[in-house]
């Protein structure tokens, strides 16, 4: 596996990110060799931990997903090939959860991008209270998602919440699919827009004041300055923020678990995986779902990197 760190002292395998060419390597100075050794030594613990806790379990998940493995009947475990995948992919539960997840992801990320840009501009440009504004914006980012979700749940609970009172009496929005989905999106947007806004704020800092002034002198309107000058310069930051938030939204769990527990057609893929594992205790099916979610996330990440190439975070680390 090429992601494994080289043990200190061994020559690097060809192609594993080697920066030296063949003749150079023979002539490595003592200092450079020492630097390499130290580099590997320092990275080794982090690499070992990351491989042990992610690569190994995902491999194990693939293995489990090929078994019939139900914790209620442990004696009946046996190899069943791809039939768990067949069972999951032909089940309406998977597809319902898939579309729900996709819907929540797309809608919340779009809203977050627009709102986050607004927030970032306010934080960047505000004339006073800058500290207060930034501090308040950080609170939703830091607050425990479960706490925020309870706050929203109570707000929409009839007879208890301030928001439920705005509705005609007898309405319980969390018990109907579409209203509940929108409320889940609302909770998600509230909680994660600050993160988006902060990443965009960092992007705004990349836009030189002089360029904006020059555009102003040339007679560009505020909107033109925003779309023609700021957005192109901010593109890398926007794409990073979009990628991170999309993948994060796709694994949505906490908000749904608290707000509806996945009832009334609001379960996401993560909720589906959790239910299969902990309610049905079916490790085989649960693992197949885990692997499929992993593949979905991989496809999203790949699409981002492929579509936007150079803007992918990995590429930016180049020095």
């Amino acid at each position, binding site marked *: 596996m090429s992601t494994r760190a080289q043990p200190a002292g061994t020559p690097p395998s060809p192609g594993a990110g080697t920066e030296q060419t063949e003749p150079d390597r023979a002539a490595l100075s003592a200092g450079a060799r020492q630097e390499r050794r130290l580099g590997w030594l320092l990275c080794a613990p982090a690499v070992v931990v990351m491989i042990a806790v*992610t690569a190994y379990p995902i491999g194990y*998940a693939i293995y489990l997903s090929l078994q019939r493995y139900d914790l209620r009947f442990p004696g009946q475990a046996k190899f069943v090939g791809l039939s768990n995948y067949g069972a999951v992919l032909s089940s309406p539960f998977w597809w319902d959860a898939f579309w729900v997840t996709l819907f929540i992801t797309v809608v919340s990320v779009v809203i977050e991008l627009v709102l986050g840009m607004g927030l970032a501009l306010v934080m960047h440009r505000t004339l006073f209270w800058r500290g207060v504004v930034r501090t308040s914006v950080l609170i939703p980012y830091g607050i425990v*998602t479960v706490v925020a979700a309870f706050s929203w749940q*109570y707000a929409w609970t009839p007879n208890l919440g301030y928001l439920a009172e705005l509705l005609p009496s007898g309405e319980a929005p969390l018990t109907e699919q579409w209203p509940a989905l929108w409320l889940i999106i609302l909770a998600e947007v509230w909680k994660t827009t600050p993160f988006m806004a902060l990443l965009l704020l960092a992007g705004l800092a990349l836009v030189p004041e002089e360029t904006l002034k020059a555009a102003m002198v040339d007679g560009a309107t505020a909107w033109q300055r925003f779309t023609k000058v700021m957005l192109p310069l901010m593109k890398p930051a926007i794409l990073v923020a979009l990628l991170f938030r999309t993948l994060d939204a796709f694994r949505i769990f*906490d908000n749904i678990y608290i707000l509806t527990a996945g009832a009334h057609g609001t379960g996401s893929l993560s909720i589906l995986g959790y239910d299969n*594992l902990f309610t049905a205790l079916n490790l085989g099916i649960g693992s197949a779902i885990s692997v499929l979610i992993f593949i979905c996330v991989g496809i999203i990440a790949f699409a981002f990197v492929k579509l936007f190439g150079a803007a992918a975070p990995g590429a930016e680390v180049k020095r």
Partner: protein
Amino acid sequence: MAAAGKTHAARWGVMNVVVVLYALFPVWWIAALSFKDPTTLTDGDYIPRDWTLENYRGIFDTSEFTRALINSIGIALISTVIAVALGTMAAYAVARLRFPGKRVLIGMSLLIAMFPPISLVSPLFNIERIIGIFDTWVGLIIPYMTFSLPLAIYTLSAFFREIPWDLEKAAKVDGATPAQAFRMVIVPLAAPGVFTTAILVFIFCWNDFLFAISLTSTESARTVPAAIAFFTGSSQFQQPTGSIAAAAVVITIPIIVFVLFFQRRIVAGLTSGAVKG
């Protein structure tokens, strides 16, 4: 001109108020709930009419909450210390040293940052059951540490690039080995960045819910976010609303303190890690 300036300022003022209200209102609402006594819980007031600490007394009366609070603090602190220690070493190497495999390391940690945790829940559940760390502190510390490592590596390597490294060279000229130069010159300079990263990692561990409900089954390792999801009222006819609100406020306090005191640093940590890679 002065009038235009005034409307301009007023417009910013209104916008700022909107932003602050948007960010804080849900937090205020649950805090207000926690101070209401059960009879006025449903009055819909934004400010409790009669303030009471009854809900707080209630949650600290039983071991369910206090135990969870101890678990949360212990698990988050230990995970943070380990993740930051390993992350610091790796980030130093990434920011400073030239060695093959660096690109792969960065790519790998990026991959882990994007990993869907639910994909690890079923294998980890089984592995932890088999090796006997299911429902223990270690069982939660290991995944927390792993998932916060990429965050630590990114933020720290961004901080490390800002450090005046000539000082290290000077130390080396004076005869220090790279390891000595690292320990005696760079570590003190890097401390603020390390501290900021620690706060971010702590917030991350403090927040987790999925691992906390999947990899625990009893009070022995369940953290507060998981525990409040399982709260029940003191009688079966009573909703645990007040207790949940009080517990929610208690676990929100550390975050509010961090944000109030380290706002500038947290913003710097989040944004530098994100944009500069």
